[in-house]
């Protein structure tokens, strides 16, 4: 089967990629704009980067975004992996409905997930408030805070909520592809089930865990709507800050942070890909040697 593509096909693909990247490129270019706008070029300058670092609001939201994404990813990856293993070991009858529920946050529109969590938190806070008042009223040992508000905690919970399904759906297939005999073989050779888990199952599903974690992190960084509804007024992710700014005036500091974000991601992906390519080359060299 020839893998030839006509010039027209290639041109089309290039156009699509240009379409995908033109806005990003423009953002980056105008981050170096001496002027104040995104439309009129007034010369090269690094001013906006300097202003960015001093802008408490934006830096705080960048920090929040990174923190919540990293935390949520780590927690979701661990929890999701265990959950996936749990599901794998279940009978089909039990697993199928649970998997359907698991898929809901992924399939639902962001806004529905955000709204439902928001309502849930509000209801919970209401109940808590009643409970705390009552508890504080009947004893003096422990004083519970009465008013809880949405903030970093609820934001984190929400992110974990929509991250775990991605991890499960990444680890699940790897578990299914795993040769069932491997675990039996390990036990036959003397492993307890805990050891079998560590020495046999984990290495087999590692690629699934890694890709699940990457997906979860991507989804967290990319999120806006769910964060918008669950962060309350005390926490703010980068996306929320930008959204707030677009209602008023936007400065090219946004361009600067976009550029920094883009470059960071590019470098990370480049490193990962180069490492993968090098590993592949090493593997195929070994095969050829044999």
């Amino acid at each position, binding site marked *: 089967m020839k893998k030839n*593509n006509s010039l027209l096909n290639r041109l089309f693909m290039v156009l699509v990629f240009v379409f995908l990247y*033109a806005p990003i490129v423009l953002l980056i270019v105008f981050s170096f704009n001496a002027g104040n706008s995104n*439309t009129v070029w007034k010369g090269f300058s690094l001013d906006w980067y300097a202003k960015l670092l001093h802008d408490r609001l934006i830096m705080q939201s960048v920090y929040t975004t990174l923190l919540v994404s990293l935390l949520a990813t780590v927690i979701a990856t661990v929890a999701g992996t265990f959950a996936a293993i749990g599901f794998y070991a279940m009978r089909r009858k039990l697993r199928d409905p649970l998997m359907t*529920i698991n898929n809901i946050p992924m399939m639902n529109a962001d806004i529905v997930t955000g709204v439902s969590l928001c309502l849930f938190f509000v209801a919970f806070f209401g109940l808590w408030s009643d409970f705390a008042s009552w508890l504080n009223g009947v004893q003096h040992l422990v004083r519970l805070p009465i008013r809880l508000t949405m903030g970093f905690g609820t934001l984190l919970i929400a992110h974990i909520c929509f991250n775990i399904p991605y991890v499960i759906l990444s680890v699940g297939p790897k578990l299914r592809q795993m040769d069932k005999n491997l675990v039996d073989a390990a036990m036959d050779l003397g492993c307890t089930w805990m050891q079998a888990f560590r020495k046999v199952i984990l290495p087999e599903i590692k690629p699934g865990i890694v890709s699940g974690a990457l997906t979860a992190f991507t989804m967290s960084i990319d999120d806006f709507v769910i964060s918008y509804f669950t962060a309350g007024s005390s926490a703010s992710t980068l996306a929320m800050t930008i959204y707030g700014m677009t209602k008023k005036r936007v400065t090219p500091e946004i361009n600067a942070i976009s550029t920094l*974000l883009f470059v960071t991601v590019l470098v990370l992906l480049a490193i990962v890909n180069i490492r993968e390519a090098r590993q592949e080359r090493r593997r195929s060299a070994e095969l050829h040697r044999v």
Partner: protein
Amino acid sequence: MKNKLSHFAIPYVIWMALFVVAPILIVVIYAFSSASGGFTVANFARMGTYAVVFTRSFKLAIIATIICLLIGYPVSYMMSKEGPRFQRIAMVLIMLPMWMNFLLRTYSWMSILENNGLLNQLFQKIGLIALYNQVFGTDLQYFRLINTQGAVVLGMVYNYLPFMILPIYSVIIKLDRSLIEAAHDLGANTFNVFRRVILPLSLPGVLSGITMVFVPSVSTFAISKMLGGGTEMMLGDLIEQQFLGGAYNPQLGAAISLVMMVIVVVCMWVMNRFGEGEEQAVMM
């Protein structure tokens, strides 16, 4: 040993009950409650007054999905015929914008589409606006690009195109090559092979892509505010208004959200009938 392992899932099941099932139940409760707390279906009746919003959202989402399909399918197909190096790089390039945040991507279009934005500047420079004025006898300084429905569709296509490409591409790439050779062997030329073998077998990926573009498109609200100017309200704006905006009416908001969930369930059902479950997380 398997039974012991299944206990691993218990914490997560509890989590799901708390943070997935309970919130949805609360939404359902709110949807059927009135402001004073009693049971009512008035909220759904009130939705009728917003029929315009519904049709607008559906219309734009369908257009965006069709455009994504028209662009995404050919791209996936062409990518599948390239060598592995090109494919790997192309995948990275397609995924990369998703790491930049949805809002940044939308924001980047604002400056391009503005009245004296980059596109309009380009049109002025090449004389397109002058030409248009001549032909139609108007006196425009710029084309109104931003704050239109078209801009919203553009924003949706731009943001969700990768979600159309990835599932279709991953299905096509896994097609057994010998099926294509067999079709050739039996007399099918390239066009017929596509029509009778590749197309039908790529349908699960197409359905997956359609769902993953339509659902966020019909429920979007940031895109419509930023690129649509907030004048033409869409479902997402409507919902947001009921919760965090001016018209505080969580019951109505919950009702609309419930309708949204039903739409998603319908999409999921269609997909399950024709596709496979894992195409959702088909990312890597």
